[in-house]
C-alpha cells in the first residue's frame, strides 16, 4: 500500500470520525472515552508484529510489555464501558424485585 493511499485512508477516517463522534450526546461522553481507550488497544497489533521479529532480550521485553499494555486497554476498556452502559439501560423497578422474593 503506497504512502499516499495510507494518507487518503487517514484523512477519510478523520472525517468519518468527526461526523460520527460529534453525534454522541454529552450523557455518553465518559463511556465514549473508555470505549475509545479500548479501540486504542489496537496498538496491540503493533506489539504482536514487533515481537515476531524480536531477536534479543531487550526486544523481547519491549514487545511483551507493549502487548500487555494493549491487552489492558482492550480488555479493561471494553469491560468497563460495558459496565457503565449497563447503568444507562432501563432496570426493573426494585419494588418488583422485592415482591418476587416475597412470592417465592
Amino acid at each position: 500500500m503506497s504512502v499516499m493511499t495510507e494518507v487518503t485512508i487517514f484523512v477519510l477516517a478523520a472525517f468519518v470520525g468527526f461526523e460520527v463522534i460529534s453525534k454522541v450526546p454529552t450523557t455518553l461522553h465518559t463511556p465514549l472515552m473508555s470505549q475509545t481507550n479500548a479501540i486504542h488497544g489496537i496498538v496491540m497489533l503493533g506489539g504482536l508484529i514487533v515481537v515476531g521479529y524480536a531477536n534479543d532480550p531487550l526486544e523481547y521485553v519491549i514487545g511483551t510489555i507493549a502487548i500487555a499494555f494493549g491487552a489492558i486497554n482492550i480488555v479493561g476498556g471494553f469491560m468497563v464501558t460495558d459496565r457503565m452502559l449497563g447503568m444507562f439501560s432501563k432496570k426493573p423497578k426494585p419494588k418488583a424485585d422485592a415482591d418476587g422474593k416475597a412470592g417465592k
Partner: protein
Amino acid sequence: MSLLAVLEPGGSAATALYIVAFSLFIIGIKQGTHPTTAKRGNQIAAVGMAVAIVTTLLLDGIGNWGLIALGLGIGTAVGVIASIRVQMTEMPQMVALYNGVGGGAVALIAWSELRHGISGINSGDIASIPLEELIPTLFAAVVGSVSFWGSNIAFAKLQDLIPTKPLSVPGQQVINGVLLIGILAACVDIAVNNGDPSQAIFIAILLAAALLGNLVVLPIGGADMPVVISLLNAFTGLSAAAAGFALHNVALIVAGTLVGSSGTILTMEMATAMNRSVGNVLFAGFGGAPAGGAAGSTEERPHVSIGAQDAAIKLAYADTVVIVPGYGLAVAQAQHAIKEVADELEKRGVTVNYAIHPVAGRMPGHMNVLLAEADVPYEQLKEMEEINPEMPRTDVAVIVGANDVTNPAAKNDPDSPIAGMPIIEVSEAQQVIVIKRSLSPGFAGIDNDLFYEANTSMLFDDAKKAAADIAAEIQNL
C-alpha cells in the same frame, strides 16, 4: 507455527479482514449515539477488535508465541480486575491510566521498529530506513512518550498522589520550549541519517519527551483535568495512527484516527465549556495567579443560612425542582442520597430534573455516569442549553457541590476571570438552595455572587449528610 501463518502481511486477505474490523469499530461508535443502543455498540466494537487480533495472529512472521501468551495473559488479568473493581467516581483516573498505557505501548513499538530497521541496515537487507516509515516512527515515539508520562501525572493528580494544585518551576515555558526544540532537532538528525540512525539519540528523544510530558501536565490544576484527559486521549489516538503508518497497518491507521477524532472533539467541547482555549489551559495554570482583587475581599457579605428542615419545606411544596450537581457531589459520594431526595419529591408529585454542566466532574460526561449509577433515568439528565430556558419556570434550584459553573459573574461582570464562561443560570430560578460546606470559592478562586443573592439560601453541610437529612425531613412532612 507455520501452519498458523496463512496470511501475507499487507496482502488482500489480511487487509479485507482489517476493513471488516474497523467497519465494526465505526458501527459500534455509531450505536453509541443513544443510551439504549450503546451497550450493543460496545459489543460490536469488541467483535471488531477480536477480528483484528485473530487476523494479526494469522499473519506470516508472527512468532515468539510464549511472549505473546505472556503479554496477553498479564494484560487481560490486569484489565479484568481493574474494570470490575473501579468505582465510577474513579473513572477519570482509569481513563487517564488507559491513555497512559496506550501511549506507552506506542512508544515501545516505535522503539522496536527502529531497532528492527537498524538491524536490517546492519545485516545489509536495506540500505536505509525509508522516511515514510521513519518519520511516523519518530512521531509515534514522541507523542507516545509524552502521552504516557503526561497521563501518569494526570492519574497521580486525580488519585491525590500528588497535589492537584498547579505546580510549576520558574521559567517553565522556556524549559518546555527548549525541550521541544531539542526533540525536533534530534528527530531531524535521525531522519537525515536514515542510513545510519543512532539508537542513543532515539532513546534521548524518548527521555526528553517523557520529561516534557511531566512538565506540561504538572502545572495544570484539578479543574482543568477534563481538558487534559481529552487532549491526552487525542494524542494517544494520533500516536496509534502514526504507528499504523510505520507498520503499514490499515487497522491501526483507521482505529487510531477514530480515537484521535474523538479526543479532539471532546477537547474542543471541554475548552468551549470553560470559555478558554486549549493553549490557555496548557500554558496558563488556572487560578495560578488568582486576581487578588476579586478573591481578596474577605469581608463577610450578608447571606441567608438555612437548615435541612427549611430546605425540605421549600422543596416539598415546589412544582418543579432542578438539581445542579458538581464535582463536590462526587467527592462526597452523595449521588445516591440525592436520588433519595428526588424520589421523595417525585412521590409528592414534584417534577425533578438534573442540570449537567459540560465540565461537571473530572472528565467529559462524568456526572452523567455517576447519576446513572444511582439509577437516575437518563431522560432527567438535562444539558445546559436545554435547561437554561426552563430556569425562570423552575421553583427551586438545588446546587450540590457545584460552584463556578453557577456563578452569575460569568454573565454579568466582564472583568471576572470567568467572564463569558457558559453557566447554568440558576439565579433565574424562583429560589436557590446551595448545599456547600462553606462560602469558600471554587477552583477559579473567586467569590460566587450567587451565594449573596436575595433568593439564595445556603445550607452549610456535607453534601451526602445534607441530602440524607433533607430526604428524611420530606418524609416527615
